[in-house]
């Protein structure tokens, strides 16, 4: 019986400890800066190098580019950019290899939708998703990007 009473002693002591339950969703959870949430896309910076589509492990990024309409400049600009969030695993490899940091993660993680069509995010939506953007990107692909983003 002694073991049982010792155990009960522990549970009674636990009643006096501080509560650790948070009342989400009334109280929103603040994620740390490095959290990998849904992406934010900046079309002006994209150079259509295709690295993000190549590195994606689940092939969820499809993009097309067109020649720069400005006759002075060379290169391509982005035309369409879609991410299929049914299969995106938020692994962060696309932001890691982007040479211009055109695609970055935000801290949004509430992605539930009522229909599967809502999960196919296009360029407009990704561009407008510009709150809570992640600051510390540790972009290994960018030429001047730092290796090891120590805060």
């Amino acid at each position, binding site marked *: 019986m002694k073991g049982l009473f010792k155990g009960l002693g522990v*549970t009674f002591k*636990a009643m006096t400890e501080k509560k650790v339950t948070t009342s989400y969703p009334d109280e929103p959870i603040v994620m740390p800066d490095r959290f990998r949430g849904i992406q934010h896309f900046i079309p002006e910076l994209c150079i259509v190098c295709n690295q993000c589509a190549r*590195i994606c492990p689940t092939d969820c990024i499809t993009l097309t580019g067109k020649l720069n309409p400005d006759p002075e400049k060379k290169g391509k600009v982005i035309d369409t950019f879609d991410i299929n969030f049914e299969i995106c695993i938020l*692994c962060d*490899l696309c932001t890691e290899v982007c040479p211009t940091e055109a695609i970055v993660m935000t801290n949004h993680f509430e992605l539930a939708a009522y229909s599967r069509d809502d999960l196919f995010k296009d360029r407009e939506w990704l561009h407008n998703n510009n709150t809570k953007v992640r600051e510390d990107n540790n972009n*290994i692909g960018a030429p001047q990007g730092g290796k090891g*983003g*120590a805060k």
Partner: protein
Amino acid sequence: MIRTEELLLNVGPQHPSTHGVFRIIVKLDGEVIIEATPVMGYLHRGTEKLAEDLSYTQIIPYTDRMDYVSAMTNNYVLVHAVETMMELAVPERAEYLRLVVMELQRIASHLVWWGTYLLDIGAMSPFLYAFRDRETIVNLFNELCGARLTYNYMRVGGVKWDASDAWLDKVRDFIPYMEKKLIEYDKLVSGNEIFLARIRGVGAYDAKTAIDYGLSGANLRCTGVDWDIRRAKPYSLYDRFDFDIPLGTNGDCYDRYLIRLEEIRQSLRILTQALQQFPSGGETMGKVPRVIRPPAGEVYVSIESPRGEIGCHIVSKGKQEPYRLKFRRPSFVNLQILPKLLVGETMTNLITILGGIDIVVGEVDC
């Protein structure tokens, strides 16, 4: 006159105590099991086949999802295999970070095991306590690499993110907190008479059976065989630290329980030493070619995950993708002893024994 008939009972695949989608077809005579046949494959996602089309960096997120309770060790085994093949040197700071993270992961994984095992046996409070303490660790990982379960943290040649000094201090604060909690867990459960009656002497086997069946981790050490890969074939920096390997004597569920709790204590010891020895500066990524192409050949490395020996066998033809990638999953191999142990046991002991083996079905099916 009472006549009993043999009953064929299906435990799972949807069952709260089978630790995932796992099915056991049990032939019962009353409450005694005559024969048990495990059926698996409900979570088979074809990781090994997919890996033949992906480069090594792309496979790392897939390894997270194999043993999802202990993702850091899965990351490490793949990255270690590629680094062994290419003979890459990993900078010291990166190696220390990897070790700290792997030991924290071991504690988190054993906490999940402890909480769910006791929940299966019938106790509700330990589950909540275990998950409360695991939240601290998972929040630490969230701050470090941006995810709570599927970290995608290690890369070939180093780690992706560096840890700030504030983060290291948080880990240092966690260690005494966890040690205090372990004493509380002991008081709560380990002396409890009901618990002891349910667990002592259940599911016992001897050392020869364990070696024959290729068991690893706590399942092997509960019989007294001193085989821990961190000690026997050290990898990473484990030869720099002073820690004990807990061993059992009887080979029953109680020994496995005690060993795993003791392993948490030893992990805390390793963490203390690692944080003392932590280098103050250094790179987090070594000198890695832009495109990772291991030379042609094959390699097999294995490390000690919380569940046992996890191994990675890569056959490479010199390309960016592996030709064949096979993971030796500890839960898959450890589960083989289940049909043998269950013969003659009662139904209640089935849950006790299955929980004691500590499986994660994502790993059983790969």
